[in-house]
């Protein structure tokens, strides 16, 4: 039953796929372009006096005036020099000679400056060949869905049959790509300077500075969310809640998480994302951040007060009236990526009681870790002691940054989308989600109302719950869903074929109905202490 029009749309889709694949290939291969060369003067200009003094002799032998084909070769040499220096300094107990700047940052600086590749020569061209073609190709893949998905309505056809969304080889390939990307981004930015400099023209335009890996990430994040946001607009075009929600996460990501902070930097103000809230924004109370805010006049002070007000007043008040969804699925950047890029993977979250148990232990442990880490940080800030109970404050911060900030939130949080669903971080790790969740569970007007006895236990709601809530468990008993983890994405309500679920903010009275009586059983009173 293929009409010609559909065949044409399919053709556009597949051509788009090829273009996207090509852009991806160029992006990956561009990381291999070289050469990289540097000399003593350049390095001296980039490093501090102490760094240069420590590294110069090693660099004279291994680095200066040598041609490196690949950026990562040069980065490896710099890293070796750095490690040798610090190993020696520590062995000799010459603590003043130990280098403290992170080696990936130090290495990045040098490798960037040494970049003589074709990418460096024509950044605009590569920006088009990678991001430009990628956007064109993916839009060509997505837009024909208006026709191909058929009339507006829920069309989850083949999610459990195709390799990309059912943990098939494509899923695992995407998993490998995402995990590798995050590892490179967080731990080896000096290996991927070609990718970073591609976004230099944009960075220059926005903040008048060269791009960092975080600029690359921020820009990529916005691009991916926008394209996948278009996919959401098409998929859920019958559902105004989803349309508004998707618009909202796109707005907050592009304006609040990307444009405003970059523009602030342009005007020499502290980099600040006005919608990021501690403890998700775990370094909010770090010395350097507090110093930056306190030394930047009224705006800096406003940022500090705004941040604290959000934590203490914003979160509880907003969650009371709207549930944690006001943040998690309407504002948050992590949530925004999960709701756009992650939407095709939402059904892969584990719904078992066991995973719920793990979730509760894990997420509250992270919250406690964040509280302890921040407590230690503030103690150091006010007392000046670098140690608390024999532990270096900086070690606690680094441990948190590495384990939670980078590995959990990034590598696992997003990398695992294609195998564990799109909310791995939000569900198991995010300390802010834990805080919002506690308020939502115990003091909120938000609930998902179950519509009388209309549930047919089909399981669409549970299947498509990204947070792994077994929605059906409640719905089939006629019970409202009040769960701390619910981010209020509204998809359970959208996929329900019988109109059983409605997200709403209503009176607290009757929000939790523990022993519901299903309609249609006049005269049957269940005994009060019934479980299961």
């Amino acid at each position, binding site marked *: 039953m293929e009409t010609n029009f559909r065949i044409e749309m399919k053709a556009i889709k597949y051509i788009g796929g090829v273009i996207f694949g090509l852009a991806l290939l160029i992006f990956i291969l561009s990381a291999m372009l070289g050469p990289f060369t540097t000399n003593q003067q350049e390095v001296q200009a980039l490093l501090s006096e102490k760094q240069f003094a420590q590294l110069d002799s090693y660099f004279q032998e291994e680095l200066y005036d040598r041609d490196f084909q690949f950026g990562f070769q040069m980065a490896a040499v710099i890293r070796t020099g750095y490690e040798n220096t610090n190993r020696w300094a520590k062995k000799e107990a010459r603590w003043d000679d130990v280098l403290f700047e992170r080696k990936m940052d130090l290495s990045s600086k040098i490798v960037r400056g040494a970049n003589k590749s074709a990418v460096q020569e024509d950044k605009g061209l590569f920006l088009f060949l990678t991001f430009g073609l990628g956007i064109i190709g993916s839009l060509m893949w997505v837009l024909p869905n208006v026709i191909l998905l058929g*009339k507006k309505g829920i069309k989850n056809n083949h999610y459990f049959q195709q390799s990309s969304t059912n943990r098939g080889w494509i899923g695992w390939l995407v998993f490998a790509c995402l995990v590798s990307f995050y590892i490179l981004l967080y731990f080896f930015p000096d290996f991927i300077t070609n990718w970073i400099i591609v976004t230099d023209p944009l960075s220059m335009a926005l903040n008048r500075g060269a791009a960092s890996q975080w600029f690359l990430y921020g820009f990529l994040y916005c691009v991916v969310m926008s394209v996948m946001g278009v996919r959401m607009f098409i998929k859920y075009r019958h*559902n105004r809640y989803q349309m508004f929600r998707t618009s909202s996460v796109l707005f907050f990501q592009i304006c609040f998480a990307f444009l405003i902070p970059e523009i602030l930097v342009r005007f020499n103000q502290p980099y600040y994302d006005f919608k990021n809230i501690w403890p998700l924004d775990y370094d909010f109370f770090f010395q350097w951040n507090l110093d930056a805010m306190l030394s930047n006049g009224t705006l800096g002070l406003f940022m500090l007060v705004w941040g604290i007000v959000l934590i203490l007043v914003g979160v509880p008040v907003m969650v009371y009236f709207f549930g944690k969804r006001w943040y998690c699925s309407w504002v948050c950047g992590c949530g925004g990526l999960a709701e756009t890029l992650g939407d095709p993977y939402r059904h892969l979250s584990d719904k078992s009681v066991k995973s719920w148990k793990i979730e509760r232990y894990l997420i509250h442990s992270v919250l406690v870790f964040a509280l302890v880490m921040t407590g230690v940080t503030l103690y150091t800030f006010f007392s000046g002691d670098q140690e608390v109970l024999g532990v270096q404050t900086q070690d606690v911060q680094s441990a948190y940054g590495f384990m939670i900030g980078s590995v959990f939130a990034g590598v696992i949080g997003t990398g695992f989308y294609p195998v564990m669903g799109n909310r791995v971080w939000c569900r198991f790790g995010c300390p802010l989600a834990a805080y919002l969740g506690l308020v939502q569970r115990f003091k909120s007007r938000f609930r998902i109302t179950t*519509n*009388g*006895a209309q549930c047919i236990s089909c399981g669409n709601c549970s299947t498509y719950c990204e947070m792994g809530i077994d929605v059906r468990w409640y719905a089939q008993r006629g019970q409202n869903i009040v769960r701390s983890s619910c981010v209020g994405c509204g998809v359970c309500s959208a996929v329900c074929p019988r109109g059983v679920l*409605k*997200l709403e903010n209503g009176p607290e009275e009757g929000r939790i109905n523990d022993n519901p009586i299903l309609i*249609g059983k006049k*005269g049957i009173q269940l005994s009060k202490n019934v479980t*299961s």
Partner: protein
Amino acid sequence: MKHVLIIGNGISGITAARHIRKQSDFRITVVSEETKHFFSRTALMYIYMGHMGYEQTKPYEDDFWAENRIDLVHDRIEGVDFNKKVAHTQSGVPLAYDALILATGSKPNKFGWKGQDLPGVQGLYSFQDLELLEENTHPPLCSPKERKVKQAIIVGGGLIGVELAEMLLTRNIEVHFLIREDRFWGGVLPKEEGELIRRHIESHHVKLHFNTELDEAIPGEDGRVHQIRTKDGRLMDCQLLGLTAGVSPNVEFLKNTELALNRGILVNEYLETNIPDVYALGDCAEMKTAISGRRPIEQVWYTGRMMGETVAQSICGERIAYSPGHWFNSAKFFDIEYQTYGRVNAELAPEEEHFYWENIAGDKCLKMVFDKETKRFIGLNVFGIRLRHELLDQWLNEERDVEFIISNLKNANFDPELFKGDEKAIIQAYNKEFNAQLELKKKRWKQIFALK
């Protein structure tokens, strides 16, 4: 300890088992030949379309049953010896019981058509039917060359038929519908709603043939169905013939026993059969005296569940009559959801009047039936609009009049947030048609949740 044996692990049998467990320590055994674990029959279509896997259709995790001491037996019951209180299984292990619950469900109707058992001809009810459908059709997402079914014919315009059509479309199969009546689901839907659904189904490129009945299925050279003949002599090609002209109680194995049968297993208002300690519920049960306004056999998920809850009370010592309350039901026709509350018959009774509203796009409607004289609200159908069950049930109990309901429709709306409601358009249409001056009331939580 009393042993309750339940034959059938569908919604009726499983609901009974769960509620007996809630209230007693009886030994409970559930036997089914279909699948070991309870799954949601209503989700069969979603497995075929790839919205879910079989695992996702199970409402309870596999260890739920052991935790709640409900023994599952995956076996076929060949017959029951009601005198000795023993059920005989295919594997030969006898199952003795103290109380027996028959919840054996249905099987698709076959009306003795010639060729009705040919390969490629099937109904859609059980998990095995789904497996057979997988065999009879090509795999999902295969190349056009591999498609072995180009055209399918479905007989019977009802809920299962429309589901089957939706399923087949996801495999790029052209679907034709043979419908005996002059409109879709004509035995249940009034004319206007039937027309709205016809338009919607046709917009999905399904071909509807009204006033058309199957006469014969004709095999091709390979012995599989390749053509059908209609009663008016037309020949139509097909490689799959879906028989979805209703279902009937699955009681074959109980025939010629002392159990009283008609079309289904005859039960009184306590769901008791003619044999002590033997109950029947769900699709297979037939009320000796139908509850007023209801059919003696109701093959609906919700009634099966309510019967399960009722019978559990009786078995646990509090004998209670089955009292299902006001009628309600729901379905989905492709992209349009349907809900109904109270009674709306295909044809109006003499004392009834109706109000019908449809949106301009023609994909949403509301039908309200009320008493001509008193305007007492009798029932409604909605398509493309969700309404609150509890509130409608309450209004039916309170015997509200149609004007009260039209004025308070905002409270009843259950569409997701931010949807544009149609209440204003509805009340304007009502005012115009009935020359009334009703005003739309604002949404009030107190009324919605019946708070003081």
